[in-house]
């Protein structure tokens, strides 16, 4: 029986806020910048306790990213906070030149990623950010799956030298990663071991995939679930080890099919170990207003979609 201990329900952005506050206490070089979204990013505690290390940039994301790059000169570790849409597409050129090409130790922390931002609609529901960020040389891309892991990832990226994109979200979701679990950038977690199909998921789709695995288990299908919290560098070793066993893969993410986790996995299987793959991702479409869960269902990134993709890919073996 697939069972996970649940440690409550919280949003991943709150995990970021707690992690950042802890960094404030333990790492005097950490500074934080925000573009008028302190509350949304859960940065309040850091702002309150470390005001001299907090920089309110106003609604000027390009200047914020440029400043963050400059702040590394002299040894600071800047964490920028705004919505994922404004952390990436709006400031791509600033990230490309001042952060990635210049290889600056900036942590771009992006909340409200994907459809689960919900009611604000498609202007804010970015589904292209993983693709944009992973294409940049020097950039590390991390997409943690729950509150606890987002906190652990926030602490871990401060120790990592170089540019990082950390993606998290708005909705309250179950917490299933242990509070004391080890988090290592680039080392995926095998959450469920199985033999019939490998699911490789990131972010909120990890919980959806756990739900799917339970449904599949009841139907006699044995699922191996990999939480691929680091999209770049991708943990090929864990992936290939699993594929050698299951011989097929479903990728699941809250992102466009093009350019996301699925494409990173496809690159590995087409060049190193060819097996059938199915994508659970948004298919070349903008989102719309709605509740997070309504949107996941409508845009086919729900647990039922993971179940369907698994049954389909197993038939293609």
């Amino acid at each position, binding site marked *: 029986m697939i069972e996970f201990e649940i440690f409550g329900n919280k949003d991943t952005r709150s995990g970021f806020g707690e992690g950042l506050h802890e960094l404030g206490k333990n790492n005097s070089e950490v500074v934080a910048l925000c573009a008028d979204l302190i509350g949304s990013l859960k940065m309040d505690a850091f702002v309150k306790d470390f005001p001299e290390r907090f920089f309110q940039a106003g609604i000027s994301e*390009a*200047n914020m*990213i*440029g400043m963050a790059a*400059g702040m590394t*000169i*002299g040894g600071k570790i800047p964490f920028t906070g705004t919505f994922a849409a404004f952390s990436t597409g709006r400031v791509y050129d600033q990230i*490309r*030149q*001042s952060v990635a090409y210049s290889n600056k130790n900036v942590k771009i922390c992006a909340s409200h990623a994907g459809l689960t931002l919900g009611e604000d609609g498609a202007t804010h529901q970015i589904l292209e950010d993983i693709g944009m960020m992973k294409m940049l040389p020097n950039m590390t891309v991390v997409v943690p799956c729950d509150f606890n892991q987002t906190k652990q990832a926030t602490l871990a990226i401060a120790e990592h030298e170089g540019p990082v994109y950390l993606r998290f979200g708005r909705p309250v979701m179950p917490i299933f990663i242990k509070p004391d679990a080890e988090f290592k950038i680039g080392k995926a977690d095998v959450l469920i071991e199985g033999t019939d199909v490998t699911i490789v998921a990131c972010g909120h789709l990890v919980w959806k995939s756990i739900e799917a695995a339970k449904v599949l288990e009841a139907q006699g299908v044995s699922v191996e679930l990999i939480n691929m919290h680091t999209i770049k560098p991708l943990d090929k070793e864990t992936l290939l080890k699993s594929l050698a066993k299951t011989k097929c893969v479903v990728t699941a993410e809250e992102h466009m099919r093009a350019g996301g986790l699925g494409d990173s996995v496809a690159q590995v299987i087409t060049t190193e170990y060819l097996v059938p793959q199915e994508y659970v991702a948004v298919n070349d479409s903008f989102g719309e207003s709605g509740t997070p869960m309504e949107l996941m269902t409508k845009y086919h990134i729900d647990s039922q979609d993971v179940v369907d993709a698994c049954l389909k890919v197993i038939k293609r073996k």
Partner: protein
Amino acid sequence: METKELQNIASQVRRDIVRMVAQVSSGHPGGSLGCTDFLTVLYFDSMKHTHSPFSMDGKGEDLFFLSNGHISPVWYSVLARAGYFPVSDLGTFRRLGSKLQGHPSTDKKLPGIRIASGSLGQGLSNAIGAAETKKLNGDDSFVFTLHGDGELQEGQIWEAAIYAAAKKIDKLIATIDYNGRQIDGDVDDVMSLGNLGAKFAAFGWIVYEMDGHNIDEIKETLTKVKAGAGQGKPSVIIMKTEMGKGVDFMEGTHKWHGSAPNAEQLASALAQLEETLGDY
């Protein structure tokens, strides 16, 4: 440093610039020649800095950010002549594998460069960040920037201008290369900046003006600006220059913004510029 000595360095830097762009038939001589006197004074007279060893963090040093990265030839020459790297490296400018990339970058670790520039409008933000870090580190040094006037059409510049005034980044000294020309023609024709001094003043900056080709005036202005800094406001120097300064056929036009002279034109240019320190 004595004015005559600075003039000699500037003359050699101008020779370096035209030779560098001519040897690879590419690069940006116009703005480089126009900013030669300023960068010479900045590095040889005004800034507190060291090249041995070059430190990325630059703690305790004044920092300089070139926001209009396309005038890399003048920066590279000044850095080399100041001792940051061998002057012979100038011969590798824009060649495959060189540390002297077309636009300044850090990835090949050229001493003196702290961040990439080329895509315009980013240097002021970078400099503000560095200035904020200096404040946190209790480092009272200055942070200098240089911008093209055409570059000020980028919106990010004005985001940064608001921030610098609002947050009292008062050890920041920006200089505008006010030559009135950009790739497509005169700035006034492409998209006029209007009354630039009034704009910066309205944004809350202390505004200075200077002649960018009068070494004594540059020295005096920089001394005055530094003395007036630290009072809660950022400073900007609107520096009147001539694109292509020092080479007669390059002056008075925007056409040498991004074109290199041919062999004959190079010979004509070099005949107008005294070799004072030895060519690379």
